[in-house]
């Protein structure tokens, strides 16, 4: 079952990569702790005799940890494939998939799964919402690995009926995962996991408030996607969140800006960012002083969870994802964030292959235009360096910042 543990190629490549890359000087300690912990989790998934669940970023980790599994984020695998430039996963995916039109995060997952680069799964769990391709990719991975596949069917909107529908599935899944691991479901573990998640979430809410400060106390690129791949439901998750809160609060108290040369522009970043090794984000934030003060993928969007009703609480967590809001409400929310964080402009990164996100770009553009908020759409590929023309991206960013200058930065969204 764990034959791949004899040669965890990914770990070897990550160690090599981290030896050649200087850490971001603006990274918070909590960000570094999170990065190290995710690598540690990956190592443990290979090395320990604990069950491993391949999941996606919308499956609540509290459930996976609460069932004593180690999660492996299949859709997140594109992130580290991009970072360590493991381009062979794309070539391998081409042998399985009939076209290259699929999102590179998913192609990386297919390639990695079929090359058996990932920790062998005990079960594969995926949700149906927000990234329809991932459920199919997870099924492809499960078939290849001869592991059981479980789909969590998540409706498109929050409602009492939807919460009950998802909660029932979560309960069945928890029992199934424990059965596969050869143990009974321990509700105390799940209870504890949810309490720890709540505690971490409260620190994160403080961080979001502190980031509204002018100048903002931390570079925003490090937060993009943080909430999606995070050890919610564990003590280390609480420790990381507390470290982030403490450091950001200290920087606000001591009036330390996010970047050494001071904050010139305040940006909101929508959707993903390039995850391969590039200085695009460094150039934007540290050299040009265009600091990302708000993003949507770093959020803890859900309400406080009731640990006494774990399945219902987790269902509410999943269904309260703001991406599921009706479009008018979602747009209102975006404009509200722009006002709260007093942004000068918005960058909407369009990950090639993400139908969900690309499909809303014209609506966002129009909404921002009507509210007089400058918006830059950046088509690109967050994972595959070869598919994102570096020079073109920088030129567009620089042009956008010039536009902000021309309209006057004092015209900040209020």
């Amino acid at each position, binding site marked *: 079952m764990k034959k791949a543990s004899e040669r965890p190629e990914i770990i070897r490549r990550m160690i090599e990569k981290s030896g050649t890359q200087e850490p971001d000087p603006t990274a918070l300690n909590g960000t570094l702790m999170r990065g190290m912990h995710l690598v540690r989790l990956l190592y443990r998934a290979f090395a320990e005799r604990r069950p491993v669940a391949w999941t996606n970023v919308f499956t609540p980790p509290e459930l996976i940890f609460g069932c004593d599994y180690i999660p492996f984020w299949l859709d997140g695998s594109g992130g580290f494939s991009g970072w360590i430039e493991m381009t062979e996963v794309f070539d391998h995916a081409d042998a399985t998939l009939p076209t290259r039109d699929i999102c590179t995060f998913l192609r990386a997952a297919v390639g990695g799964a079929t090359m058996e680069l990932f920790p062998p799964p005990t079960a594969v769990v995926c949700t149906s919402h927000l990234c329809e391709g991932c459920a199919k990719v997870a099924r492809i991975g499960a078939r290849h690995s001869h592991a059981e596949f479980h789909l969590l*069917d998540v409706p498109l909107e929050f409602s009492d009926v939807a919460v009950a529908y998802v909660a029932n*599935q979560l309960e069945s899944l928890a029992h199934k995962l424990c059965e596969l691991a050869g143990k009974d479901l321990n509700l105390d573990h799940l209870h504890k996991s949810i309490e720890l998640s709540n505690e971490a979430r409260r620190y994160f809410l403080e961080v979001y408030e502190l980031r509204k400060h002018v100048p903002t106390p931390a570079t925003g690129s490090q937060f993009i996607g943080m909430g999606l791949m995070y050890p919610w439901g564990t003590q280390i998750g609480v420790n990381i969140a507390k470290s982030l809160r403490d450091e950001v609060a200290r920087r606000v108290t001591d009036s330390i800006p996010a970047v050494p040369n001071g904050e010139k522009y305040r940006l909101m970043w929508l959707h993903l960012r390039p995850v391969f090794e590039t200085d695009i984000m460094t150039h934007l934030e540290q050299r040009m002083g265009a600091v990302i003060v708000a993003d949507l993928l770093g959020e803890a969007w859900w309400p406080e969870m009731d640990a006494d009703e774990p399945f219902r609480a987790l269902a509410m967590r999943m269904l309260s994802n703001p991406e599921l809001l009706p479009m008018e409400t979602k747009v209102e929310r975006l404009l509200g964030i722009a006002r709260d964080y007093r942004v000068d402009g918005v960058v909407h990164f369009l990950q090639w292959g993400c*139908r969900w996100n690309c499909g809303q770009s014209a609506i966002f553009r129009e909404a921002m235009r009507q509210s007089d908020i400058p918006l830059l759409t950046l088509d690109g590929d967050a994972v595959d360096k070869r598919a994102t023309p570096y020079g073109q991206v920088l030129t567009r960013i620089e042009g956008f910042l010039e536009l902000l200058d021309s309209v006057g930065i004092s015209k900040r969204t209020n």
Partner: protein
Amino acid sequence: MGNSETADKPVLGWFCTYTPEEIILAAGFESRRILGRTGPTAKADAHLHPNLCAFVRACLSSGLEGEHAKLAGIIGIDSCDAMRRLFDVWRATFHPDYSHILAMPHVQTAEAVEFYRHELERLIRSLNQYFGLTISDADLLRGIHTMNETRTLLTRLYKLRRSSAPISGTEYYSILRDAMTEPKDRFNHWLKQSLEKSTSNETSVSSGVNIILAGGVLDDPWIVGVVEEAGGRVVADDLCCGGRYFEKLTSTQGEPLKAIADRYVLRAPCARMSETETRVQNLMELIEETHARGLIYYTVKFCDPHILDWAMISKELQSRGVRALRCETDYSISERERMRTRIEAFLEMLK
């Protein structure tokens, strides 16, 4: 046949065959599927990113061309990410008086049926509230009877085509398009009469290599004509503009809403559902029933569910010795000749 623009009643538009037409009819509307046509979709690109599936961009293009100006409203469904966005963009572009979106489960379980029943209740409440209606069980039964009549007539046509060949494949799929876009009573009346004439004047089965056509939408039957010209015969399909549209009747027993939910959740699944194994099984049954010698999988560019399902289905077909060809369309005319060459070569291999 006729022209849907001349419908006697107000019309509700819809995009995906998981939409419960029974309820549209029960509410006193005509039901019309919004489809695309082959041709440029450049106008739609200003509203929908070019990497969204060509079908949704073709649908939006048809709206931008003014084809659906008189709709009383639209009913969307979260069939896939692109469809969800089509609903959003349609509303933002055309500002329809009425719009509603349904959540469709991705699994075929009893719980999913129950969930969808609730969604149908929500749709009825919304229609009642907006249009001042009181849709009753009797209205729903009337809608069910009309839809079942359409399905029964289309099944007769399908069987007739299998046993004899009164019409070409291209004509058959054009009739199916009419079934989804024309006023139902008018269509049913027309098809019933046409079938009576055809059954009394049967011709012999045409020769040709039996082919199964599977995949997503087929709103332009051009490819069927290519198969026929190349010496093939599309004997059955697994398409949302084909067999999946009419293959299962809605029960007239028990609670109508439960029966409607049953029919839609448990019908032959399309790629947006999780049941890939069921799709493989259905295809194998079709191949066996029709003695098909090959399968053409027809997908729309950027349709992730069908593309990813194909990655699994193709392996299963290969392991069972079924010869298959995948063709992809982006609705442009320019790629047709390339596709024609591939289909001709495929059929040559099968002969």
